């Protein structure tokens, strides 16, 4: 569904990604792990068009989207739940969700049944239903993360990019977020998950890529990566 081939990207003269290639098959959950500054967020930003790749191809359902404007990529079905959640604090939960469906409401994407999808989000994220009319800024961190994911899903995406959903959350909430991601996976949503919390990410994912200084350090089935001694030592907190 999503294929990144030899992607080179960075900020100005600083090159962050060096010939990165990853692949996200339809209906699968692929995770990209790595330490701070490895280029995880940059990868997602390049995929969703927020920075222009310097070289390489990004194929969404076979179509090269590298270099396209952000809003065009979104209209082709790439939903991005950004780092740090970035919900609109002064808007209600309902309005945030509606903005997620914006390209459908303007006819840039097939409309479908927006109201039904909203109800589906409330089934996936029951907490949001209780807080429908509340301003997003008054939600807890965990609830805001749920809202950010639900907003991205309102696009009716082909691929969902999740950037550090566990960032800044209490351990109990992190568990909840990962339980939600597992539910999305069960619903056959194609996802690329970027996480620093490698153990939890590999637990839910089908396949994993380990990124180091903008290059692939290793990759493989999530289960085998979890048992890889080098990965364990570097990212999973030693040998337990």
């Amino acid at each position, binding site marked *: 569904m999503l294929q990144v081939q030899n992607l080179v990207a960075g900020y100005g003269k600083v090159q962050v990604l060096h010939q990165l290639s990853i692949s996200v098959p339809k209906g699968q959950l692929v995770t990209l792990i790595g330490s701070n500054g490895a280029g995880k967020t940059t990868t997602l930003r390049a995929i*969703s*068009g*927020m920075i222009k790749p310097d070289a390489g191809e990004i194929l969404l359902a076979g179509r090269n989207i590298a270099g396209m*404007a*952000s*809003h065009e990529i*979104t*209209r082709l079905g790439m939903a*991005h739940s*950004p780092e740090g959640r*970035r919900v*609109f604090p002064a808007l209600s939960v309902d309005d945030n969700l509606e*903005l*997620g469906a*914006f*390209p459908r409401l*303007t006819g*840039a*994407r097939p409309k479908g049944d927006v109201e039904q999808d909203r109800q589906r989000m409330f089934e996936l994220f029951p907490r949001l239903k209780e807080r429908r009319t509340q301003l997003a800024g008054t939600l807890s961190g965990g609830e805001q993360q749920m809202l950010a994911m639900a*907003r991205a899903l309102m*696009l009716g995406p082909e691929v969902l990019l999740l950037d550090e959903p566990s960032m800044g959350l209490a351990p109990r909430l992190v568990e909840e977020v990962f339980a939600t991601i597992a539910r999305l996976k069960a619903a056959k949503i194609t996802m690329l998950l970027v996480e620093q919390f490698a153990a939890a990410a590999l637990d839910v994912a089908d396949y994993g890529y380990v990124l180091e200084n903008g290059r692939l350090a290793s990759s493989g089935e999530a289960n085998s990566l979890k048992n890889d001694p080098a990965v364990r030592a570097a990212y999973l907190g030693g040998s337990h």
Partner: protein
Amino acid sequence: MRRTGREEIGDPVIGIRPSLNLLIAGHLVVIAPFIFRTTLASLTQLDPALLEASANLGASRFFGFRRITLPLIAPGIAAGCFLAFISSMDNVPVSLFLSNARTGMLPIRMWGMMESTLDVRIAAIAGVLILATLILMIVMDRLTGLTKRISG
């Protein structure tokens, strides 16, 4: 044209005759910095993440400009227009040199009145000007909310 040393105001200067267009051009030069500065100030305060978010949710660049950038910098543009209006309204030097008999500018007229027939009309105009400025100031404050921001 040969200079005689006895040119008068209204005579062509460097081959350009005072006209309404020239007057407008002169005033534009004087007021442009006011609008540039205030607009620039509100543009630097604009959070770029908002535009990124709008593009990310599928809004085109023009849509983002129309629905996000413009509304957010509107108070800055309005403040600039207010300053520009005031400075253009009571500008004497530019008006004096670039206006001709057909384009009677208020400050020039007032000046003329004061020199020839000083009467109550001058006081009336001045009164109206002060009142109009006061009303504009109140309107501007309501729009940009400076008092609200200062008092927290």
